[in-house]
């Protein structure tokens, strides 16, 4: 049996061109972008996209012209006519640019835009231009082989592209979209995002021209966002290390080199910049850029990173799942990751241009970006979220306390009225008894003493009602002029009477100390510190005689109130717990506690400190300014 062997080779159906051009390029805008990239790769300094929307008189028309190196017949055949071919970076080492195209399919994108393509190209200085006419419909046949479709060309004399400059002009007609205003705006947006705003190319610009519309005509430019609160930049130094710089307002600039958990060997040199706004940024700061983390290769955007819906770092997803815990809000994050085709050859686009080819390099890039986001999150949490949360908590606590005091105030108001009526009657009638007895000629020392005792006790009840009303009046923000020494004296006398613990109160007060402050705040804090002291004395089991010393003095514009006790004092552990108490919602008697004391003192612009020794006693010092406002 004769041996039948040889080899097969692929041949391609003409329809493959249709598949590449129309199916792989996702949108019309993406197709134009492919042509812009081709212009860049051809060394152009300027690419002009002319879009003529369809009118009743003429059909829509798109032209993309560049002032790049242009092509002669041989170049055209080698570069343009060979599907899937592109000049690799190593083949273009002499060029100053790294080519953006890597698949060699961009030219087929014109087939997505319209049926006809007329390519006109001139090598700089050449007398004639090469004009090539494509009818993409000829590739629709599945039976025809790709090489069987004849593309006619001729050299002609033409003004464009300019002789002294050279370049390529692609004119597309038979457009598949009408190219109305909205689509042109979308094109401008896509083009604006095409170039890395943080790494502006000095030698390349894109211009859109729309005949008849000055608002849509003009250079396309995307400025980077401004005034971000946190600006993080990072560069991969080697397989493990990342150099990181954070500029935070406030906080200044910090530089560090950190270890990554990922193998970064394939993405050495990768550079990124994350800009984060602590509040929703205004348009004048974002420069119209959409939030997201964009990836740019050699200055050109890699789709779909940064596109709405492309939550490739899971920022939005994490935010949604852990609302309140993940502190990076996706709409406030603007990220720019720069990769290079030369340095990071493993970071390749998929043919559909809708992702990077998965692999170690892509994984490392995602991992690295996530590490940076986590770092930002930590920063935001520590510097912003926690202080803000603490401030909210403090404000909530004061609000809560104010509400409680308000209720107590209303109640004490009613109680005051109800109590004072019978007190008035008792006081008056006691006086009347005395008067009557005197009228009857009875003057008795004991009766007079009884009457005096009744009067004293009525006054004491009245003082108590007043004090409760003062405490309950509650609004620690109401400041007034009063004698602070007198207030401390009266309050301490009351606290002493009501303490139920045997103790002595030593007052070291000036005769008068005028203050402009909140009576409610002073009384509340004093009450709580007094209660603390009484508890500390009560807790001592060695039978010591309790002494509470209250000192008041003035240091320039600051009132200094010091309350010391000889109670059990605090162990270092107690003091640490006290610190925690300051931070918890623990409420003590009457709903205050030291936590509120601290808040109230702070609300008055003051500070609360303490010194304590186990077994010896504790001293609390309150300092607050005379005019908290």
């Amino acid at each position, binding site marked *: 049996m004769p041996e039948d062997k040889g080899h097969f080779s692929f041949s391609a159906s003409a329809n493959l061109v249709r598949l590449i051009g129309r199916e792989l390029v996702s949108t019309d805008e993406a197709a134009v972008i492919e042509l812009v990239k081709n212009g860049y790769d051809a060394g152009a300094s300027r690419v002009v996209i002319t879009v003529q929307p369809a009118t009743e008189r003429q059909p829509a028309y798109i032209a993309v012209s560049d002032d790049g190196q242009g092509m002669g017949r041989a170049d055209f055949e080698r570069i343009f006519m060979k599907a899937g071919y592109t000049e690799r970076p190593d083949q273009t080492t002499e060029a100053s640019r790294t080519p953006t195209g890597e698949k060699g399919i961009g030219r087929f994108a014109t087939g997505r835009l319209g049926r006809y393509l007329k390519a006109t190209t001139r090598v700089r200085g050449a007398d004639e231009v090469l004009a090539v006419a494509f009818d993409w419909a000829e590739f629709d046949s599945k039976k025809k082989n790709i090489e069987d479709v004849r593309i006619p060309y001729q050299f002609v004399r033409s003004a464009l592209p300019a002789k002294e400059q050279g370049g390529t002009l692609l004119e597309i007609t038979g457009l598949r979209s009408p190219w109305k205003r909205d689509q042109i705006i979308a094109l401008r947006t896509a083009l604006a995002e095409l170039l890395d705003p943080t790494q502006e190319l000095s030698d390349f610009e894109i211009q859109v021209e729309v005949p008849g519309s000055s608002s849509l005509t003009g250079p396309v430019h995307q400025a980077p966002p401004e005034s971000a609160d946190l600006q993080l930049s990072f560069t991969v130094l080697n397989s493990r290390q990342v150099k990181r710089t954070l500029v935070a307002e406030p906080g200044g600039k910090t530089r560090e080199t950190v270890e990554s958990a990922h193998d970064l060997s394939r993405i050495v040199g990768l550079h990124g910049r994350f800009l984060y706004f602590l509040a929703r940024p205004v348009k004048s700061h974002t420069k119209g850029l959409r939030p997201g983390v964009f990836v740019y290769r050699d200055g050109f955007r890699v789709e779909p990173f940064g596109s709405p819906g492309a939550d490739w770092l899971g920022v939005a997803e994490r935010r949604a799942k852990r609302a309140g815990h993940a502190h990076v809000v996706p709409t406030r994050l603007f990220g720019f990751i720069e990769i290079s085709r030369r340095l990071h050859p493993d970071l390749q686009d998929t043919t559909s241009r809708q992702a990077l080819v998965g692999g170690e390099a892509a994984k490392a890039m995602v991992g690295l970006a996530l590490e940076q986001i986590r770092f930002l999150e930590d920063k935001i949490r520590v510097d912003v979220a926690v202080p803000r949360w603490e401030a909210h908590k403090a404000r909530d606590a004061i609000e809560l306390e104010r509400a409680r005091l308000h209720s107590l105030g209303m109640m004490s108001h009613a109680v*005051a*009225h109800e109590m004072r009526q019978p007190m*008035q009657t008792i006081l*008056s*009638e006691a006086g*009347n008894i005395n*008067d009557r007895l005197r009228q009857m000629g009875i003057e008795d020392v004991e009766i007079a003493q009884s009457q005096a005792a009744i009067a004293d006790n009525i006054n004491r009840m009245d003082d108590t009602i007043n004090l409760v009303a*003062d405490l309950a009046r509650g609004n620690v923000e109401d400041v007034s002029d009063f004698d602070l020494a007198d207030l401390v004296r009266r309050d301490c006398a009351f606290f002493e009477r009501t303490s139920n613990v045997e103790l002595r109160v030593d007052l070291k007060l000036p005769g008068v100390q005028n203050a402009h402050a909140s009576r409610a705040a002073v009384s509340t804090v004093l009450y709580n510190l007094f209660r603390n002291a009484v508890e500390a004395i009560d807790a001592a089991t060695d039978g010591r005689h309790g002494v509470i010393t209250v000192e008041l003095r003035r240091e320039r514009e600051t009132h200094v109130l010091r309350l010391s006790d000889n109670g059990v004092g605090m162990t270092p552990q107690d003091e640490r717990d006290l610190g925690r108490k300051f931070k918890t919602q623990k409420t003590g008697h009457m709903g205050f506690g030291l936590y509120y004391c601290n808040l109230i003192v702070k609300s008055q612009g003051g500070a609360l400190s303490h010194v304590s020794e186990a077994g010896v006693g504790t001293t609390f010092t309150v300092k607050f300014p005379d005019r908290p406002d």
Partner: protein
Amino acid sequence: MPHHVLVVDDEKDTRAAWAKALRYGGYAVTTAGNAQEALEACERERFDVAILDFIMPKTTGVELLAAIRKRLPLVRAVIVSGKLERQLSEEELSQSLKSAVEADSYLHKPVSNERLRQVVEGLLTQAEPQEWSDIAKRSLDRRALTQSTARRVSRSLKQKTKSKR
């Protein structure tokens, strides 16, 4: 003839106790438990001093004082309350009530009998204040002047006129 004091308080025990205390002080006292009773009393009788509780059902001592003044423009008035803010002293409240409704004095409850009688006595014997002339001017067209107060007003006016010359 003793000075006549009107005591208005919705608390029966309080007004009874005050009436007794004032009578022991030598005053003639009429009591009223509410505004209507007080105004009826003012139709019947003349008073030198009115002691008015600040908080009463349906009205306040200040409103009642304004109504009483229409009948007795020159009656001296003391407002008493167990409820008003203690942050303000009696003096401060007296001043603000004086400028607002021409009340002459303010007292916080509870008030001792001695203090009550002292304030009433003070109002009756105090040197005629400068404001008397103003009050008199405003009140001359009113007919309900007591004889004694009318005499005082005219004397005060005469003195003023002399000093102007």
